[in-house]
């Protein structure tokens, strides 16, 4: 169909960058409308071309693309390249990223309508799209890292978008620092890859796994570690930072300080899934270390269960969704650990749509409520915002895995996969994800009921102005609602059981859980019906029912629970005291150590002794010896004679 796909791939990456540059540097010239047009067209071009590429590769069976576009620099034998690897895995990500981003660009016109930083915002989100595309399209580790840091930077800029708000600045610094911890591991992992594989190119690295598999490394003397395990865990630590897994999850709830469109785009749909994508991309490496897979499994399970619990006590509408995101990322991570990479990617895709939908719906509520985010001051909104209400319902059903919705298929696949996994930790993980289903349903519908139903708790002024959001907000909601419902049914068969990802994902026979499930898979309908014979669906319905009882029928009960289980309630409110611990131990400790080094090392030793000390000494000395220049002729002549005698003494004397 196309002579030269390379140009299309280049255009996909460059269009959003161009939009970003124009909106960012010339925002004042082109004005507000100019800025949103140029970026929306840029991302729109990128999105449509991504779909074209998707059709070319997935439906037309076109060739995968793996080429170096540009050599940035060469050091010895190491070439650092910019190159694209476009296969079924990356093209799927490209479509999700550009499409969600496109919707959010449009939505932003409404959400940021009165913001003075309008052009800046559009420039940032377009830049984010560029960086994310560089990340997913990369064919080597270095470019992956570039995109990784690029999205991190834009995330930082956007969390702190309202830079005059103290909490926003605190949150973006926190996000940046926590991600630094993850990136440190990631960078070590990349260094390990370079050290043992001698290349940074994916294909080269994956082709050399056999040679590295058996090698060991001594990190602490006397203990042999498998190189693969060390590299994989280091890489996964990077994923833990970016995809907010326990204990590096602390930044994500705080990131809700940023404007809602970016919470949807970056902190729910795309960037936070970069870690999931990365591990899937590295599946040929991770498959070689069961230790690493177990580690992933346990971390993911902890995140899925315990972060969901936190969602139960939050009152800020965005924070509830943020904890739900954490929990869902935990589900994806668990799937990775169980070697069900395809299931993880499947959930990633469906989650991207329904979570973006939920966030945008929350944003719509926030617009209607005049930027009030506390659910205790909402209620009964369904009368005033019917479209938002309906799309929220769709999103919530997808999130809890209501049979037939996208979320149902992807989540059930993960649960089934765990059921078949035999890795250490899979038992705990299975329990965590099943229990998680109930909790997900509970907090999701707590949010839904508190916001849209029950007593109207807002003040008079807000109530007077309640109305449905404008078209630029509701249209993206509607568009996102469609895939949230139907996408799963279309995708499940090909993605999970019919080798959709082809060679992009490698699973070793020993833990190929999806194939095992596939043996009993007889079409979408069968899969759906089968679900009614298993616990999760009933757990989900129980969760919804509980939420209805607690927040609609007997709204005074939650307070009694909170009172009776004071300790538990406090623990959840304080987020397991992890923030406090980090704040006191890591942040406080680092600052104390820094203060100490500054006081002793900088002020006293370097500044005091070396810098000022020498300078003062030299100046003092200079002042002394300048007096030798007395101005008297006989002193000068005397100095010359002394000099002469000195030379004579030294050079004639030693001859004797």
């Amino acid at each position, binding site marked *: 169909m196309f002579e030269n796909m390379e140009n299309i791939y280049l255009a996909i990456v460059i269009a959003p960058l161009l939009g970003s540059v124009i909106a960012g540097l010339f925002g004042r010239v082109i004005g507000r409308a100019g800025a949103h047009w140029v970026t929306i067209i840029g991302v729109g071009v990128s999105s449509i071309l991504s779909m074209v590429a998707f059709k070319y590769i997935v439906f037309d069976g076109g060739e995968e693309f793996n080429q170096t576009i540009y050599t940035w620099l060469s050091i010895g034998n190491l070439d650092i390249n910019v190159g694209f690897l476009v296969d079924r895995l990356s093209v799927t990500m490209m479509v999700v990223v550009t499409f969600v981003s496109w919707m959010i660009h449009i939505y932003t016109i409404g959400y940021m309508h009165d913001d003075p930083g309008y052009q800046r915002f559009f420039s940032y989100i377009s830049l984010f799209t560029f960086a994310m595309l560089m990340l997913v399209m990369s064919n080597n580790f270095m470019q992956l890292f570039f995109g990784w840091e690029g999205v991190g930077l834009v995330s930082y800029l956007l969390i702190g978008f309202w830079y005059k708000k103290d909490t926003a600045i605190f949150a973006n610094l926190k996000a940046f620092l926590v991600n630094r911890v993850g990136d440190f591991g990631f960078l070590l992992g990349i260094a390990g890859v370079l050290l043992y594989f001698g290349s940074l190119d994916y294909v080269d690295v994956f082709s050399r796994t056999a040679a590295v598999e058996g090698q060991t490394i001594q990190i602490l003397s006397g203990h042999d570690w498998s190189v693969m395990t060390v590299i994989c865990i280091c890489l996964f630590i990077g994923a833990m930072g970016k995809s907010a897994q326990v204990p590096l999850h602390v930044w994500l709830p705080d990131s809700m300080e940023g404007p809602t469109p970016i919470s949807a785009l970056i902190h729910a749909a795309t960037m936070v899934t970069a870690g999931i994508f990365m591990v899937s991309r590295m599946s040929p490496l991770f498959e070689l270390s069961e230790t690493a897979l177990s580690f992933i499994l346990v971390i993911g399970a902890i995140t899925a269960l315990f972060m969901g619990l936190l969602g139960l006590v939050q009152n800020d509408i965005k924070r509830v969704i943020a904890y739900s995101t954490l929990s869902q990322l935990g589900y994806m991570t668990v799937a990775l650990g169980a070697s069900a990479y395809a299931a993880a990617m499947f959930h990633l895709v469906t989650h991207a749509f329904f979570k973006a939908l939920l966030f945008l719906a929350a944003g719509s509520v926030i617009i209607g409520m005049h930027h009030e985010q506390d659910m205790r001051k909402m209620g009964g909104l369904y009368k005033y915002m019917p479209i938002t209400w309906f799309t929220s319902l769709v999103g919530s059903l997808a999130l809890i895995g209501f049979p037939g919705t996208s979320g149902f298929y992807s989540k059930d696949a993960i649960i089934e996969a765990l059921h078949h996994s035999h890795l250490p930790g899979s038992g705990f993980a299975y329990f965590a994800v099943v229990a998680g289903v109930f909790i997900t349903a509970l907090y999701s519908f707590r949010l839904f009921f508190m916001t849209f139903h029950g007593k109207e708790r807002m003040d008079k002024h807000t109530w007077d102005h309640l109305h449905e959001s404008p078209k630029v907000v509701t249209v993206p909601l509607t568009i996102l609602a469609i895939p949230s419902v139907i996408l799963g049914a279309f995708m499940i068969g090909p993605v999970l059981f019919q080798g959709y990802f082809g060679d992009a994902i490698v699973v070793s026979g020993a833990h190929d859980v999806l194939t095992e499930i596939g043996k009993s898979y007889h079409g979408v309908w069968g899969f759906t019906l089968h679900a009614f014979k298993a616990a999760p669906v009933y757990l989900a319905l129980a969760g919804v029912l509980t939420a209805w009882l607690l927040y609609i029928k007997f709204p005074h009960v939650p307070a009694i629970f909170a009172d009776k289980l004071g300790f538990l309630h406090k623990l959840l409110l304080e987020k397991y005291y992890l923030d406090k611990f980090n704040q006191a131990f890591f942040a406080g400790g680092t600052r104390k150590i820094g203060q100490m080094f500054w006081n002793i090392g900088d002020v006293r030793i370097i500044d005091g002794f070396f810098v000022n000390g020498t*300078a003062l000494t*030299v*100046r003092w*000395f*200079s*002042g002394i*010896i*300048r007096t030798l*220049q007395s*101005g008297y*002729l006989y*002193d*000068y*002549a005397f*100095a*010359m004679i*002394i*000099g*002469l005698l*000195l*030379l*004579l003494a*030294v*050079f*004639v004397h030693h*001859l004797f």
Partner: protein
Amino acid sequence: MTSELTFLIPEIVLFVLTCIILLVDTIGSSEDKSFIYWLSQSTLIVTVVLLVFLCPDSTTHAMSMNFVSDPMGAILKIFICAYTSVVFFYSYDYLKEHELIRGEYFVLGLFAVLGMMVMVSAYSLLTIYLGLELLSLSLYAMVAMNRDSQSATEAAMKYFVLGALASGMLLYGISMLYGVSGAIDLASLSAYISQQTGNNILLIFGLVFVVVGIAFKLGAVPFHMWVPDVYQGAPTSVTLFIGSAPKIAAFGMAIRLLVDGMEGLVDSWQGMLIILAVLSMAAGNIIAISQTNIKRMLAYSTIAHIGFLLLGIISGSQSGYAGSMFYVLTYALMSMGAFGMVILLGRKGYEADTLDDFKGLAVRSPWFAFIMLILMFSMAGVPPLVGFWGKWFVIKEIIAMGHISLAAIAVLFSVIGAYYYLRIVKLMYFDKADQMTAIKAGQGMRFVLSINGLALLALGFMPGMLMALCLGAFA
């Protein structure tokens, strides 16, 4: 005999033309000295043209071994004349402005140039002395030119007495060398030394005195005492002159005496020069810090630079000498620019010679603040300016010869030295100006000074040609 005279044509022409200018100046009674100035400039240009035209590509001796014609001498002489021409250019406005304009300034300047050319091309001990005295006597008189200035006469007096003392020592050394070897030309002296097997006390004695003479002329510690007083006391136009071309001549003289004449004693004079170099770098850089007068500060800076210049000679290799030559040629250019700035900022009845005069220059004249910035950074040895390459060149050579500790000392003192150069930059860019008077200098002065500063930048980016030239002179 007649053919030998062709080697001396530039010197002869310069001498004759200078005498004519002297006559014209004496006969003509005009107060307007522009005619004399242009005659002097023409003389220098003619000399440069002749030097370039007659530039030799091999070494020839003439006048009964009293004169040598070689590439190094020719290059040095071309630079001496060219730099003097720029010095005259800077001086002309200054002298007019301060009502010091006299024909003698130019005539004495030209005689000094003749002396320098003789020093550079002399090949016998006596011719060297002859050239040195011709230069020195001209300079004494030039320093004293402003008779009514107490500080100028005092400086001239000091310079004269100490200069006489140093000349005496040099002459005493020469007599000893002659007494031992019976040779007055450098070739025979060199031949005699190479036949010596053991150590000859009298030779070393003579060498010490000769080194003292050279050190005085260069202004190396502890024979430097005249430098700050003369630099500060003399009219700025004279300081400008003393600070540029004569350094090149002194370098030429050092090469003639130490390398052409006494390379056999290299072990001895190396040691002496190391002492002088270390003392110069130390004293020059450290004392410069506490100066408040920029002319005096630049005097100490000169002393420090002489220490660096000596490093190249100390290395005792052909490329080391070339390094020193590169250093002196570029240093003279920087020094000229720096004193040019002092002249530029001054005006009628006012010498801008304190550091405070540079305060806030970036506001008064951003362009010349930038030029001064280039000059100061170059003196401090900041890349990519040419001052960096000069230091790099000589330090590379002494490291190649194994004098690591000497190189370390040199680097250390250049760090200390950076302080007072950067202080000027700080004064210009970060302090508030005491006075906001506009700069008065004419277009020509502004133009040439800008070229002078930018040349440092250009040479910094393309040092290769000048380096090749210097290396070629010692090939």
